[in-house]
Structure formats: C-alpha cells, structure tokens
C-alpha cells in the first residue's frame, strides 16, 4: 500500500519535470552504451563491431525509452494533454473552419436548450409553483348525454374546494376551450 502511494507521488512529480527527466534518461542510456562500447573495444573488437554488439545486448534504445516513459509519468494524463494540445493546434491552423464548427455547435446546443426549457415549462411542469408535481391531477366533469369530459361549473368547484378531503387545493385553468380544474391531492 505504501509502495503504491509512493509510486503515485513519484509519477505525479514526474509530470512536472518531463524535460529534465527526458534529458536524464537520454544521458543515462548514452552513458550505458558508451561504457559497453568501451568494454567491447578493450576486448579487441573494431569500433563498428563494438557499437553493434553494445546496441544488440542493450536491445532497442527507443523501446526502452518508451517503456521507461510509461513507468515514469501518468501516461493517461499525458496523452490526454497531448490530444488537447493537438486539437488546439488544429483549430488554430484553419480558423475559418473552426469558427464555422464552433458556430454550428453553439447554434445547435443553444436551440436545443431553448426548446427543451420551453417544452419543460409548458408541458412537463406547467405549474412551477406546485411543489409536488407528481401529485397533479386533472379533474373534469361528466354530463349525461355527453361522451367526452365536460366543464365544471364555478359553484361545483366551490363545493369541491369546500368538501373534498382527497384533494389539497384546486387551481383553475382557463383556456380557449373552457375551463379545466387542476388540483393537488395527497
């Protein structure tokens, strides 16, 4: 556990000293190869042979560096930052296109937000002052000989308001078609 924490801290610190550490790594590997070449020369190899042998037993300088980098920093954060930087660079390279894209996105998101808030206000939460929206009911009247719902008369509403125990309070909704009564029940 303590080792994991230490490793994390080490990796985090490495994020801020990338250039320094990169130079360190290059220097360290170069010194390794030079020592190997020197040793090979002392065994009587030719210059070229000594270098080739040294590289061969080292086994891939670039792969080693890649492995080392993965171990050193926080690769996920580093690649994300790289992608971000790349994206910004691309935006700057073609400002006209970028502007168009940004405009399209702005319009799209703006229109969506506007429509949604309108729909929410009108259709989903028509009475914002009511705290328990889920308890809203529509009450309509019925009348003999009529198939659909009918209107409720004002005296009926007053009666309901006075004596109905199922429902907390009534809201009267007036529209072009007449009156609908809404109320909150408990």
């Amino acid at each position: 556990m303590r080792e994991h924490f230490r490793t994390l801290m080490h990796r985090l610190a490495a994020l801020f000293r990338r250039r320094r550490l990169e130079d360190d790594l290059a220097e360290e590997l170069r010194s390794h190869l030079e020592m190997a070449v020197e040793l090979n020369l002392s065994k009587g190899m030719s210059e070229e042979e000594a270098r080739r042998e040294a590289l061969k037993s080292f086994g891939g300088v670039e792969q080693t560096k890649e492995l080392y980098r993965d171990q050193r920093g926080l690769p996920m954060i580093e690649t994300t930052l790289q992608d971000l930087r790349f994206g910004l660079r691309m935006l700057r390279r073609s400002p006209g296109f970028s502007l168009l894209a940004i405009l399209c996105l702005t319009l799209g998101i703006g229109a969506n937000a506007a429509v949604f808030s309108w729909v929410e206000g009108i259709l989903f939460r028509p009475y914002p002052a009511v705290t328990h929206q889920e308890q809203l009911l529509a009450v309509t009247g019925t009348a003999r000989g009529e198939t659909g719902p009918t209107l409720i008369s004002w005296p009926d509403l007053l009666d309901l308001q006075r004596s109905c125990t199922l429902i907390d309070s009534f809201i009267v909704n007036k529209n072009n078609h007449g009156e609908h009564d809404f109320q909150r029940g408990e």
Partner: protein
Amino acid sequence: MATSKSEVLQGTLDLLVLKTLDSMGPMHGFGIAMRIQQLSQDLLQLNQGTLYPALLRLEQRGWLVSKWGVSENNRKAKFYSLTRSGRKQLEEEAEDWARMSAMINRMLRTS
C-alpha cells in the same frame, strides 16, 4: 548448441537488482547488468535495456535512490543504491523465492 540461454523470469529481475546492489554497494545501470550477466555465467538472456524501467520502478517504490556521479573511467553515470526499506524488501523477496523454489524442487523430485 548445448545449453540455451533462459529468459529472466518475470519478477525475478527486481530481486536480482536488489541483491546486486546489496552485495556491491552503489552501482550504475551498466555495472548492474554486467554483474548479473557475470554471476549467471552468461546463461541468462538479459536485454540490458529492460533494466532501466525496472530500476525506475524500484526507485518509485522507495527501495532505491539514484544520484549522478562519475564512473571508474571518468564517465558521468547515474548510481543506484539500496535504501533501508529496499534491504527489507530484498530479505522478504529472497525468503519468498527460497520457499517457492524449494516447493517446486520437492514437487519435481516426487514421482
């Protein structure tokens, strides 16, 4: 070919590095590689490059510390040395290894 070189077993490189530093004192990467190859009598196929990520890993865990210095033949090199918790880790890993290899030997001997 009479004998083939064996790859370094996964996880054993750390142990070899810790042990080398424990018995030899501060060393640079090349020195560690040479020492491991010499002690294994060249039977071990060690890609020397793989040593460096391993050294970093050990350092991150606090088992090693590194410091730039000058080598025997006046070359700038990074020297690694064991810390106290590194020594403790070595003891633990050596014990684990002994237990494990004894167990495998036992299994191989019984028919």
